[in-house]
């Protein structure tokens, strides 16, 4: 709900707020520029009478003096029938230069407050400010939800690059944006008189002006009593009009001064409403608060970026939306599928199930969990496929499910199977699916199948679940889920290094490039040539490459050991007995081609910063870890723990790692082997080095683990023992984004 609201108001507001923010950022520089020209130091002891006295000799035709909020003094005058305006040094009374308002700034200001459309435009700007405020609030709440509450608002971010950029920039700019949006909205409301008028009553024009011979301006007592730093405006009486007066506006109020006696007449101090208005005006414009102006201007500059990334995030979510064909109405269906999805990927799985059941002759109704009906008269079975959001919460399309389920009391019950989708890396793996299953069981719903879970959208696990359903339903179902992948690229094998034959663990490092003349249009090939690009799709070490072995429809994923900027796509693959894809890859000769696509895996890479990094892996798990080390050009301390079988046979990347040790990209290499006389596993070595590792973790070290599930489990257990004295455990580190796993 919050997301839908945020997306739609964002799209509607995009143009309005981008214009507001860019023009606002330009205007925000003004107070600073003005401040740099103004002479303000040491002016507080100068009285207005002194200033006007100095000005009088230079400007006999002075008509008006103004002090801008930044402290510049401007004199408006007439000389030889022509009007002019000069900036004045208040200390010497000398001219600094001609004063003029920049027509460009006037234009930008009008664009900012009315889109150059006068009153209708001002309404638009007001709406823009209102939408900006809504967006800032809803965005902040979404971020808090996503990170598991306000207390965790500074936690590291997960998600794609654009999502993280959107959230990170928003997190930095939120206060500035709140300030400009709310003060802007207030000013808009003032313009349209939606809030009571703030202006104090005008002082009445004095009735009893003496009308004597004007005194010299520097002798007027009222002007002697006012400091230059207090005045805003002084308007001189019209020449030859002895009944006219000086009009004066200061920071505290307004009044008139008799030009003969110098008496202050009908002075009126500002009311509190005016003071409030002026304070808010100051906050919005930064006038007289140049540093705040610059800060708020900077945060306004983030708005175009936020809009762009926001639209991209929205678009990619929309693009990945799934349409269900042959959807039977709820009251006719014999089979119901309910979907709980945050990023739409669970819908893809539901569609596969829907299509398979439809093919087998079932009347299937598929809908979001939030659309749970109060009754399904003909239903005989219910499938619930759901992911989990954040810290065990319901995903977007299931946010109302529990409440609805609680409300519906008289529903006919039928057997249900719950399938959870999640990522074992996260502590609350499939927690929402577990909660749903528990809630149904508590209400007495019979079980069709026990709760099952799918880790990282594994098509293999999903196919296995399909087999279980086939058995229960006693009908042939094949759940081949092919997630919609990005267009695959053709790659050619250019290099392979083989290890481990002697220890029955044939493992190869394979390097691929884009073959010449393959894929992409002529233009992008030419561009690629120009820019010396490799032609590879963009990826980072730690991302996944999906490879389809010929004759299979389900891709296998391998962690990438290189980044696209290395100019080569590198993976480290062990041949599993009977493994289709690993067998295919191992049989490749130089020059053979494969079809592959990239699946970003942004949660598995070192976070930016100087904190030490501990990499832990076993076997082919070294792949992405080598990629991280290779790109450690900043020479952050990296400690690598790695376990193999035998140093003579399967010491993967041995030569490269030694180079990295020498050039300091790698600080320490701890390799252990299980088939030597002093056999040791990586988790054993971790326990031995416990004190050292604890010290690193105390220094904010981040830990990245890559390898098999068993090894990862043992490493977690070992580290839990090691850091127990610090009063934390691996879960704490995970929550802080300092413990990341890529486990298979």
């Amino acid at each position, binding site marked *: 709900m919050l997301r839908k609201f945020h997306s739609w108001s964002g799209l509607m507001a995009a143009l309005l707020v981008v214009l507001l923010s860019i023009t606002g950022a330009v205007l925000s520089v003004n107070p600073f520029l003005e401040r740099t020209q103004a002479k303000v130091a040491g002016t507080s002891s100068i009285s207005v009478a002194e200033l006007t006295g100095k000005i009088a000799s230079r400007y006999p035709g002075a*008509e*008006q003096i103004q002090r801008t909020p930044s402290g510049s003094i401007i004199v408006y005058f*007439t000389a030889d029938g022509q*009007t002019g305006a000069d900036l004045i040094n208040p200390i010497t009374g000398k001219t600094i230069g001609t004063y003029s*308002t920049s*027509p460009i700034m*006037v234009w930008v200001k009008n664009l900012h407050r009315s889109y150059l459309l006068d009153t209708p435009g001002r309404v638009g700007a007001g709406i823009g400010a209102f939408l900006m405020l809504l967006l800032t609030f809803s965005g902040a709440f979404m971020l808090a939800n996503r990170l598991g509450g306000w207390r965790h608002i500074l936690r590291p971010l997960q998600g794609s690059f654009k999502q993280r950029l959107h959230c990170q920039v928003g997190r930095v700019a939120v206060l500035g944006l709140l300030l400009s949006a709310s003060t802007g909205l207030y000013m808009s409301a003032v313009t349209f008189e939606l809030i009571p008028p703030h202006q104090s009553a005008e002082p009445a*024009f004095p009735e009893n002006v003496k009308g004597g011979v004007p005194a010299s301006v520097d002798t007027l007592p009222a002007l002697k009593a006012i400091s230059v730093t207090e005045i805003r405006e002084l*308007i001189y009486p019209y020449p030859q009009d002895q009944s006219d007066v000086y*009009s004066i506006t200061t920071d505290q109020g307004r009044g008139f001064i008799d030009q003969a006696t110098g008496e202050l007449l009908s002075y009126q101090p500002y009311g509190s409403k005016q003071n409030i208005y002026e304070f808010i005006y100051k906050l919005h414009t930064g006038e007289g608060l140049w540093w705040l102006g610059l800060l708020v201007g900077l945060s306004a500059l983030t708005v175009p970026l936020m809009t762009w990334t926001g639209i991209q995030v929205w678009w990619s979510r929309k693009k990945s939306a799934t349409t269900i064909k042959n959807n039977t109405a709820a009251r006719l269906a014999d089979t119901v599928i309910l979907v709980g999805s945050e990023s739409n990927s669970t819908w893809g799985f539901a569609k596969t199930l829907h299509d398979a059941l439809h093919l087998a002759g079932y009347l299937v109704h598929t809908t979001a969990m939030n659309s749970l009906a109060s009754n399904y008269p003909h239903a005989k079975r219910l499938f619930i496929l759901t992911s989990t959001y954040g810290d065990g919460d319901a995903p977007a399309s299931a946010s109302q499910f529990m409440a609805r389920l609680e409300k519906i009391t008289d529903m006919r019950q039928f057997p249900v199977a719950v399938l959870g989708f999640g990522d074992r890396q996260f502590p609350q793996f499939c927690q929402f699916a577990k909660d749903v299953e528990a809630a149904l069981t508590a209400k007495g719903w019979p079980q069709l199948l026990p709760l099952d879970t799918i880790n990282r959208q594994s098509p293999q696990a999903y196919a296995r679940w399909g087999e279980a359903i086939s058995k229960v339903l006693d009908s042939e179902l094949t759940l081949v889920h092919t997630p919609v992948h990005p267009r695959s690229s053709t790659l050619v094998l250019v290099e392979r290094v083989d290890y481990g034959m002697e220890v029955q663990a044939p493992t190869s490092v394979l390097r691929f490039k884009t073959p010449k003349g393959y894929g992409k249009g002529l233009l992008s090939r030419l561009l690629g040539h120009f820019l010396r690009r490799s032609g590879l799709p963009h990826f980072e070490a730690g991302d996944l490459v999906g490879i389809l072995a010929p004759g299979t429809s389900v891709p296998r994923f391998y962690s990438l050991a290189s980044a696209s900027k290395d100019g080569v796509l590198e993976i480290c693959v062990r041949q599993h007995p009977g493994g289709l894809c690993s067998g295919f890859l191992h049989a490749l000769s130089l020059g053979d081609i494969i079809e592959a696509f990239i699946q970003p895996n942004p949660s598995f890479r070192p976070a930016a910063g100087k904190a030490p990094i501990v990499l832990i892996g076993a076997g082919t798990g070294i792949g992405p870890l080598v990629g991280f080390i290779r790109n450690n050009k900043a020479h952050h301390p990296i400690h690598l723990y790695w376990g193999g079988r035998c140093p003579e046979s399967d010491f993967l990347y041995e030569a490269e790692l030694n180079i990295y040790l020498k050039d300091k990209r790698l600080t320490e290499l701890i390799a252990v082997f299980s088939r030597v006389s002093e056999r040791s596993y990586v988790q054993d070595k971790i326990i031995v080095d416990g004190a050292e590792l604890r010290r690193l973790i105390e220094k904010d070290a981040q830990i990245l683990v890559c390898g098999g599930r068993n090894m990862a489990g043992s490493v977690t257990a070992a580290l839990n023992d090691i850091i127990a004295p610090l009063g934390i455990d691996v879960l704490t580190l995970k929550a802080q984004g300092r413990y990341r796993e890529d486990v298979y």
Partner: protein
Amino acid sequence: MMKNLAMTLCLVSAALLCTQASAREIVLTTEMQNYGGDGAYLAIYLTNTEGQYQNTLWIAGQKSKYYKHLSGWARGSGLRNSEYDGLSGASVTSGKTLTVTFDLPDTYIDSGFQIRVDSAVEDMRDSRNDVVVPLTSEGAGKPVTGRSYVKAFTYSF
């Protein structure tokens, strides 16, 4: 080419007409300088030879909270709503021309009365007596240059 913002209206000023039988149509043309700011507020009004306020002819600019910047007129009229009721319109943008037409009793012409224009622009100076011109048959149709925002002011009948 300068665009003309022509604002034409016929107004019947009760104060002017109640004692006078003969009146004639008078056209006021105010051409603005390219001063490069926001729309200007103008007060066009009649004074006697001593400069004492007599009547409001036209107020350009619709937000009365800014009227105090038209200081000569503001003082004379006391900013009383009744003085300019029905005699106001939009502010005049830089470089544009304001044209106002109304009926004026003959007795005001060649009798020492003056037409004055006060002007003000947001974030720029206020200009009292931007234009001061005696209302005479001789002066009709002859443009007068203003002091600050008004490039040329002409009355004709």
